[in-house]
């Protein structure tokens, strides 16, 4: 074992640290600790000269361990690891002591703060003695991709990948491709025909050789890790016994979409009881068939459109479904052009018209004769059957916000703008592909702002409305983004795996299988022949649960070893 | 001022035994103390443990008779669960216990007693041990002894899964049964053992009874005490080591009491002296009268001899023959000749061997009803078995969650603590006369007194070679002027 040469650096951080911690004092005491070859202080360790100081010392003094006492490692650990790398030292032979966020910024008494800073520094120095050089591993990347869901998102992503020349397995639960978009007539705000949008995708898809479409098919099992997944698909339309098939893939795009809110859950809208209360999707059907009429077959004279059915409501879903407002305006416009004599009233909470072209679309819609009525959240309008004397099917009572009056309006037809909600099987899917979902059931991205289509499981991506309600352009954008992420991975050929993970010492493992169930990523495999467990580094996220739980001390948590932590405990207490 | 003679260490169960002999100014024995200097506190630290764990804890009281503690404990625990026990379990436990007895008695007889008789009390100390015995009777027999003891251990291993510190007994039965295959393994061992027992008995007759001076030593000499006898008996007053009632008989053969285990504390109490950690049990109803002999003495022996003294007969035919022959030779039943305990052990072994054979032939023994799951916790239990070295009592109580709330143990050897005090003093007085200093012989004579009891603080002498280290230091005016040791 080579003799240790530790370089210790303490940062003033301007005055951020120096004003409460006697930085020089820390430096001097550290210089006395065994194996500390050099101890320095500097105004800003993270600045270029600060980093160069480390680089040079490594080169000139032959340091083989580096400790920086400064801000939080969450701030600059990577910065200094990089400095070590530049100096030719393995970045993991570095340790940081957090004497700013967790010391100088929260304490006022200089003596006390300095003592604590010394303790934290001693902990770091003790710990770094036991650090080991770690190098990233690499694994093969299988270029094939599994796409779950044959809606616009799935189709787009599949096409993107296939056109780039990589095999895609497109899995659709139902008997045909298209998903929800296949149920839509025209789209807001530009009145493109959804039918055309879809048709275009499907024809191009058929033209692409390396997409294999699996209808009536579901994912049954997924094992392995990024670049090396094995998926079991089950196909069966009910009338024949289901067939299972295993495929080898590198990545998965989850594009399982949404389901619309069940309007009958809001009883006072009378959906399912009053014949002419219909949902937006049923109205789309009428539009597609070109026949807008009531049950009795007469064209409606009064049509009311009610927004936020199941959305923005404490009883059902608190979130906004994002597409209903524009769709509602689209209906108003289509009604007016189909039945110019028809009175259309649009009953909304707020008009959400964000996004390209939507505000203009709103303005234009308000020009055609549409009566806009505003109701308050959780004060839904009430629909009742009209009496014989009234010359309409139903009457709707609304507490109108703008006028502040209780208004009663006639209606022959009521269109409920049902919101989006996660599919009932979202939970199962999440479990199958080992990702998580939020309280509403939408799949969670690895970072809501900076990493929207990735998930916490490497190689699993989410696109479209399975992650949250969104319109077609956003959905398509996400589908392409996910595809792009995967293409980049495939282009790299190999995948790099961080050197920090848990490893089982086969000489110590006794096959008790205590750890097997514990890993949230199923990174631990049991070899029944050898009677030993082992960790798949690429799947391991280094949480260390199995390390703490292994009763025979056979599992080592790289960079968080027992030895390192015990040394730190001793250090901070000494 | 009084001078003192120290014999230290003698040997031990819990720590060394130590004898302090105090002489008055004319050199006569003024007083004599036998001290046990260690205590481990089992009675306290089992409190708070789940009651079913106790049989697996108390075995560590003694590693030489762990099964005695395990069985007594198991029975006490059964009591805490309303004594709901699979009948087969009792048979299996008893079967195990007979094997345990044989292993222990063989070791004691050959490693401890035999040297005195086979080599002779006056033989050179350096050869007065098991190796000496082997040298005299031949290496072949020596190996046979080791083999026989190993067989007895194997039988326990097969039955209970372990020899030392078994973990076999659970409330309501035992944790594993005996398979037909295992039984087939055991059968030949049992046969071999019973012929070895016969051989041992013959050896004793030839070597010991064949030699008048030994017979004289047994019958006379200082090795007799006028104290009472205690032992466990079955419904026919035959010795039973695992199960039965405790019978107390005075040295003239009159039954003093015969009680159920649960009644033990009406009949036995323990006296405490400040100079030894070992307590002195006595017959409670008679009260503590000090270390006094006599027909009304409250002190009793619980030794192999005592067990046969309280028995009217043996439980098996060949043992019965041996029993009759022994007491005829001893000049009647009961006997006060402490040294006869060595013989009594052999008689007991005959019964052990015959009982083992009986169980082997019992068609039920390999059935699978070896445990029932108890349905209730009743909270108190007393378990009494005959440890090789005396009646062993475990008394537990537990709360309704089955957590131990108290434990009282009267360990086999403890019963004999008072008699040992007395015989030690007696021997010292006989041998240390005013004027002339004690001679070498005192060491062995005292040692032989001990061996008669095979006190459990000497049970560990069941390892080779069989001598206890003894030393006598004689002081005059505080000055050491002579010392003997070997």
């Amino acid at each position: 074992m080579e003799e240790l040469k530790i370089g210790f650096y303490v940062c003033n951080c301007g005055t951020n640290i120096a004003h409460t911690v006697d930085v020089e004092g820390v430096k001097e005491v550290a210089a006395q600790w065994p194996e500390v070859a050099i101890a320095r202080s500097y105004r800003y360790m993270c600045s270029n000269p600060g980093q160069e100081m480390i680089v040079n010392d490594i080169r000139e003094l032959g340091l083989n361990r580096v400790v920086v006492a400064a801000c939080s490692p969450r701030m600059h650990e990577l910065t200094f690891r990089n400095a070590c790398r530049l100096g030719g030292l393995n970045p993991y032979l570095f340790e940081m002591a957090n004497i700013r966020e967790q010391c100088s910024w929260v304490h006022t008494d200089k003596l006390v703060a300095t003592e604590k800073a010394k303790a934290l520094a001693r902990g770091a120095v003790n710990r770094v003695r036991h650090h080991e050089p770690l190098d990233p591993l690499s694994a093969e990347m299988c270029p094939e991709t599994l796409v779950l869901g044959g809606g616009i998102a799935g189709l787009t992503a599949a096409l993107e990948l296939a056109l780039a020349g990589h095999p895609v397995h497109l899995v659709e639960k139902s008997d045909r491709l298209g998903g929800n978009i296949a149920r839509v007539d025209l789209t807001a705000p530009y009145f493109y025909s959804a039918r055309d949008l879809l048709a275009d995708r499907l024809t191009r898809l058929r033209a692409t050789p390396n997409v294999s479409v699996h209808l009536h098919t579901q994912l049954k099992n997924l094992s392995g890790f990024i670049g090396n997944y094995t998926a079991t698909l089950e196909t069966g339309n009910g009338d024949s016994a289901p067939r299972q098939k295993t495929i080898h893939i590198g990545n998965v795009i989850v594009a399982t979409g949404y389901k619309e809110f069940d309007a009958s859950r809001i009883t006072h809208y009378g959906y399912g009881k009053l014949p002419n209360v219909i949902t937006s999707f049923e109205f789309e059907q009428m539009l597609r068939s070109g026949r807008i009429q009531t049950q009795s077959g007469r064209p409606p004279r009064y049509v009311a459109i009610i927004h936020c059915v199941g959305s923005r409501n404490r009883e059902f879903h608190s979130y906004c479904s994002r597409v209903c407002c524009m769709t509602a305006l689209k209906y108003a416009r289509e009604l007016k052009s189909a039945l110019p004599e028809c009175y259309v009233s649009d009953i909304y909470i707020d008009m959400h018209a964000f996004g390209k072209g939507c505000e203009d679309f709103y303005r234009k819609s308000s020009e055609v004769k549409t009566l806009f009525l505003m109701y308050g959240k959780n004060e839904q309008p009430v629909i009742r059957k009209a009496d014989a004397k009234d010359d309409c099917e139903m009457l709707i009572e609304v507490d109108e916000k703008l006028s502040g009056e209780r208004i009663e309006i006639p209606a022959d037809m009521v269109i409920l703008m049902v919101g989006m909600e996660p599919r009932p099987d979202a939970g199962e899917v999440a479990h199958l592909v080992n990702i998580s979902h939020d309280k509403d059931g939408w799949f969670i991205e690895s970072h809501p702002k900076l990493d929207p289509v990735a998930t916490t499981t490497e190689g699993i991506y989410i696109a479209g409305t399975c992650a949250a309600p969104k319109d077609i352009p956003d959905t398509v954008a996400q589908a392409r983004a996910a595809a792009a992420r995967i293409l980049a991975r495939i282009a790299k050929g190999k995948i790099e795996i961080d050197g920090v993970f848990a490893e089982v010492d086969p000489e110590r493992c006794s096959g008790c299988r205590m750890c097997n169930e514990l890993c949230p990523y199923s990174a631990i495999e049991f070899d029944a022949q050898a009677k030993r467990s082992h960790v798949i580094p690429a799947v391991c996220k280094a949480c260390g649960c199995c390390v703490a739980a292994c009763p025979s001390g056979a599992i080592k948590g790289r960079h968080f070893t027992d030895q390192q932590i015990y040394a730190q405990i001793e250090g901070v207490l000494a | 001022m009084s001078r003192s003679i120290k014999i230290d260490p003698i040997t031990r169960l819990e720590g060394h035994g130590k004898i302090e002999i105090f002489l008055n100014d004319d050199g006569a024995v003024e007083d004599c103390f036998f001290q046990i200097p260690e205590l481990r506190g089992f009675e306290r630290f089992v409190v708070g443990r789940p009651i079913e764990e106790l049989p697996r804890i108390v075995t560590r009281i003694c590693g030489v008779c762990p099964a005695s503690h395990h069985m007594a404990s198991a029975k006490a625990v059964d009591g805490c669960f309303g004594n709901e026990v699979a009948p087969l379990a009792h048979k299996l436990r008893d079967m195990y216990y007979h094997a345990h007895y044989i292993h222990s008695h063989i070791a004691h007889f050959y490693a401890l007693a035999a040297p005195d008789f086979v080599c002779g009390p006056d033989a050179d100390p350096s050869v007065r041990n098991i190796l000496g015995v082997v040298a005299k009777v031949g290496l072949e027999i020596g190996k046979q002894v080791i083999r026989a003891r190993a067989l007895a251990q194997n039988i326990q291993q097969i039955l209970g899964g372990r020899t030392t510190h078994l973990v076999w007994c659970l409330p309501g039965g035992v944790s594993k049964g005996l398979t037909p295959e295992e039984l087939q393994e055991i059968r030949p061992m049992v046969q071999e053992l019973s012929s070895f027992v016969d051989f041992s008995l013959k050896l004793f007759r030839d070597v010991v009874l064949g030699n008048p001076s030994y017979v004289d030593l047994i019958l006379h000499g200082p090795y007799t005490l006028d104290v009472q006898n205690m032992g466990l008996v079955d419904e026919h007053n035959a010795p039973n080591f695992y199960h039965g009632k405790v019978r107390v008989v005075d040295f003239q053969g009159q039954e003093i009491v015969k009680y159920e285990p649960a009644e033990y504390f009406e009949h036995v109490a323990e006296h405490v002296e400040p100079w030894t950690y070992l307590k002195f049990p006595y017959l409670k109803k008679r009260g503590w009268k000090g270390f006094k002999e006599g027909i009304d003495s409250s002190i009793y022996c619980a030794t192999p001899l005592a067990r046969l003294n309280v028995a009217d007969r043996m439980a098996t035919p060949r043992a019965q023959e041996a029993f009759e022959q022994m007491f005829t030779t001893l000049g009647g039943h009961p006997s006060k000749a402490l040294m006869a305990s060595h013989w009594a052990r052999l008689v007991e072994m005959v019964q052990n061997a015959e009982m083992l054979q009986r169980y082997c032939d019992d068609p039920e023994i390999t059935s699978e009803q070896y445990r029932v799951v108890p349905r209730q916790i009743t909270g108190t239990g007393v378990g009494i078995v005959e440890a090789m070295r005396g009646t062993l009592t475990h008394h537990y109580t537990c709360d309704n969650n089955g957590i131990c709330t108290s434990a009282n143990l009267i360990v086999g050897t403890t019963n004999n603590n008072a008699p040992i005090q007395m015989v030690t003093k007696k021997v010292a007085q006989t041998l240390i006369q005013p004027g002339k200093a004690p001679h070498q012989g005192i060491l062995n004579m005292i040692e032989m007194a001990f061996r008669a009891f095979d006190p459990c603080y000497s049970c560990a002498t069941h390892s080779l070679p069989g001598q206890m280290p003894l030393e006598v230091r004689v002081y005059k005016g505080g000055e050491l002027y002579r010392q003997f040791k070997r």
Partner: protein
Amino acid sequence: MTEKKKLQIALYWGAACGGCDVAVLDTNEFILDVAAAADIRFWPIAVDGKYADVEALADGELDLAIFNGAVRNSENQQVAELLRRKSKILVAFGSCAHLGGIPGLANLVKREEILTTAYLANASIQSGNRTIPCPETNCDGKKLEIPVLYKRVYRLADIVDVDYFVPGCPPAPEQVKNVLLAVVQGELPPRKSVIGASDRTVCDDCKRSKEEKKIQRFFRPFEIIQNPDRCLLEQGLLCMGSATRSGCGVRCPNSNQGCRGCYGPPPGVRDQGTKFLSALASIIDSKDPAEIEEILSHLPDFTAYAYRFGLPASILQRSHRS
């Protein structure tokens, strides 16, 4: 092995039960070879020889001293120190010397409680007794001494420097053979090693089937009839095999009883009890604090189980010799 110069050996029995010596005896015929290869210079329970003789020896004159039993009183400590001085190699033999053993459970209570229970409180104590044995008594002018009972139980290593550790309660005879052979043939591993045991855990030698583990309910051994083929822990029965060095021959699980850890922690594990705790609690199948408490309520007295043989060896009870 009789060719070599005879080994000079001493054996001593501290706060122990004698089972360790029986384990030596259980090597059967092998014991005769040992007797042939070694001079047993001190074995109070067996052979001629006394403290005085040991004191008379030159320091290091003994080749090997085997100490079994824990250190409970002043006498144990004196002899431990004496043997350490006189012997080249000192072996802590058996669970008590190695870890404190079952007598170490006494460390859960105060010495005073032990004395009170044994001499004043118990059911069969002579009524009205006020006497408790004490180190020094004066019996009308005669001074009588007995060793001082310490406040707590110590491992041998807490008292003196130990060269090797032989685990087990008692050590398995086969292992005893191996150890004695290693000594006689001078084939010992580096000092401070545990000898006569494996580096894996009991599970490695246990024949029972093992699956992924999730515990919904714990059972006390009397509550169910054990399945002889399946991992005891998976049946909800406490078994410490996974946190215990192997070498015993799986004695207890083979008797349908959970392992109690007498062989001590495997290499690299600092504290057998807390390590087992960590593993055991992790596989409890619940995410609800109340339910977890409920499941644990079927597991009374966990501490005395997790440290059945090693309380004095636990991190919180190791005496820090400086």
